[in-house]
């Protein structure tokens, strides 16, 4: 077993990146991502990590540097938040279209306006369709673990996709948690150096990033879509291998006291831990409430999600972002996922905790209360922003 150390989650993330022996790091500072890059630059400056580190002039360039580096066969890393991601967004689509593996840690933060440095998932939702593998993690250990998982997965010749680890800004990035570190020898075995199928090199010239006319574009998009969808078995396999190495097993959709539950809370990210406390309290009162946590956001695990939820009478989906003029993006995904089922639970959607507004276990209980009453009264597809002062 590895050492268990209390450390800030951002520092743990940087440690993991170091342990992956990345080749090129390129980033631009933005709260709350800064501690990760600061730590990494320190590790490079001290010679603890042999990598090319660039604090570039913008996030657009940060990701572009990673794209160039990955195309030349390097293991690349970047991290950002909010406005930084917005500036990068153009290149996120290109990185996946070019099938270039790399890792981005996204310390999730609200998109302006109004300007806010606090946490929600509006940044991640903006690039929902960018074609990367996207995880939402729940605690510091998951952040640390998923750095290794992401590189091994993304670089697999049958996958070749960039990966985003979403971790809630401040709520995760700035807290100190006990992290079980993995011995370097184990990591070296789990994650050998990146061997690209193709790389930019004069010995074997290739053209990357050619343009497509309508007569061929659909075919290239379909190839990408099929590849991303079919990466699910590889994702499961990678988690399994990781579990065998560490004893920590992950799954696309995690459940808590869900089997016999009539009402299921559905969350993504750090909400999961708080919601589980709420579930415990409600269980004590004899209420059949459980929790489903989505860890794999793209490719969306439709089958696993259905398996986890179809038996319930109602889902209370808590979104941490809003698709203004529609509803919470997770809720709309779930509605689409379950639409084809002959018998499906009612779905009540709350948007809560945006811009870092605190959501306590008691809030989850209130949301379940409210949803149960509303559904009982026939409002089967309700949507509201929770906790707004009127």
């Amino acid at each position: 077993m590895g050492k268990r150390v209390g450390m800030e989650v951002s520092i743990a993330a940087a440690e993991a990146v170091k342990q992956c022996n990345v080749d090129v790091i390129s980033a631009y500072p933005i709260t709350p991502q800064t501690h990760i890059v600061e730590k990494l630059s320190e590790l490079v400056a001290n010679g603890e990590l042999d990598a090319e580190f660039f604090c570039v002039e913008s996030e657009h360039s940060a990701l572009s540097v990673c794209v160039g580096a990955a195309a030349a066969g390097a293991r690349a890393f970047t991290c950002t938040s909010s406005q930084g991601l917005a500036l990068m967004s153009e290149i996120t689509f290109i990185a996946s279209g070019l099938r270039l593996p790399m890792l981005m840690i996204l310390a999730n933060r609200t998109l302006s306006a109004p300007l806010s440095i606090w946490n929600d998932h509006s940044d991640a939702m903006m690039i929902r369709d960018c074609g990367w593998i996207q995880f939402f993690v729940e605690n510091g250990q998951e952040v640390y673990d998923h750095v290794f998982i992401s590189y091994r997965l993304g670089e697999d010749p049958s996958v070749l996709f960039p990966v985003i680890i979403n971790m809630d800004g401040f709520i995760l990035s700035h807290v100190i948690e006990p992290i079980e570190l993995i011995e370097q020898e184990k990591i070296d075995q789990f994650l050998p150096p990146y061997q690209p199928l193709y790389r930019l090199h004069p010995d074997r010239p290739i053209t990357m990033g050619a343009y497509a006319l309508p007569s061929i574009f659909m075919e290239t998009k379909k190839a990408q879509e099929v590849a991303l969808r079919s990466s699910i078995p590889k994702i499961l396999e990678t988690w399994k291998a990781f579990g065998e190495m560490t004893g920590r097993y992950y799954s696309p959709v995690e459940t808590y006291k869900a089997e016999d539950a009539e009402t299921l809370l559905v969350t993504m990210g750090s909400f999961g831990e708080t919601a589980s406390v709420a579930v415990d309290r409600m269980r004590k009162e004899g209420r059949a409430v459980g929790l489903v946590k989505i860890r794999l956001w793209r490719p969306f695990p439709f089958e696993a999600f259905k398996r986890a939820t179809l038996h319930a009478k109602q889902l209370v989906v808590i979104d941490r972002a809003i698709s203004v003029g529609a509803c919470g993006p997770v809720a709309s995904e779930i509605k689409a996922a379950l639409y084809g089922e002959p018998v499906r639970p009612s779905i009540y959607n709350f948007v809560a905790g945006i811009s870092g507004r605190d959501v306590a276990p008691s809030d989850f209980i209130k949301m379940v209360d409210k949803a149960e009453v509303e559904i009982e009264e026939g409002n089967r597809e309700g949507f509201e922003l929770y906790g707004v002062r009127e």
Partner: protein
Amino acid sequence: MTETLNVFAVRTLTQKEYFAPGHRSCQGCGEALAVRLVLKALGRNVIIANATGCMEIVSSPLPFTSWRVPWIHVAFENTAAVASGIEAALKVLMRKGRIPKKKIVTLAMAGDGGTADIGIQALSGALERGHDFIYVCTDNEAYMNTGIQRSSSTPFGASTTTSPAGRMKMGQITWKKNMAAIAAAHNIPYVATACPSYPIDLVQKVRKAAEIPGPAYIHILSVCPTGWRSAPELSIKLGRLAVETGIFPLYEVEYGRYHLSIDFPKLKPVKEYIKLQGRFRHLTDEMIEEIQDRTQREYEILRERMKRGF
């Protein structure tokens, strides 16, 4: 010096083509010629990052490619950053022994729009960081790929689709941005201007850029018959006139020291250059006079710099 500016010495260049024939540029395209010469100068040990623009579009319709050397296109404004990543990857992978050690030139290429406008931030960042790469701007003085819209590199008076000559305005009302001077202001080891109408000069500058460690910037005036409304068979002549009139002087800035590649005791009148191009058709004699004065003035400044050395 005259030797390097000799048009016939071009026979001494390699017969090998790294930018394959059969690409889809217009007849008489100065950019395509510039690219071809740049690649001849560098040979096969090169990796190219190319911005969105004419040269990308004419060369890479899936599933075809005109590139016989490794080449990547990512987006419009980030070529210098992509090249930075490539250069960094080569460096670290060679250091870690994961690819064999050998000299591979990282070359970034973009048009004037991709350089002087939307890509200037990424370029400035890459120059400042000091990556060992060459950045070539093929300047055809407008956004040609999207249909001849003005850029900050479009010369005063030129009519484009977004700076049209009309009753109130006479085409572009601003003066051409001096990109080479901006690059030189980064105190990088090497900056040069070139034009494919002077092929040997161009090739030598590219080779020099490849040899000098650190960033190098080469600004290449590239005649575009489609956008300039000029006859395709006049492209080489127009490039020569641009230089001979002082509109586009050829020079180098080596570690801050200015050096004119070819000096003319007496410049040809700009009118000789202007009258061959439809984009200037509407210009009045007064406007041409204004261009003449400004050209002369700027040429003198350059000459003084050369005398001073910086």
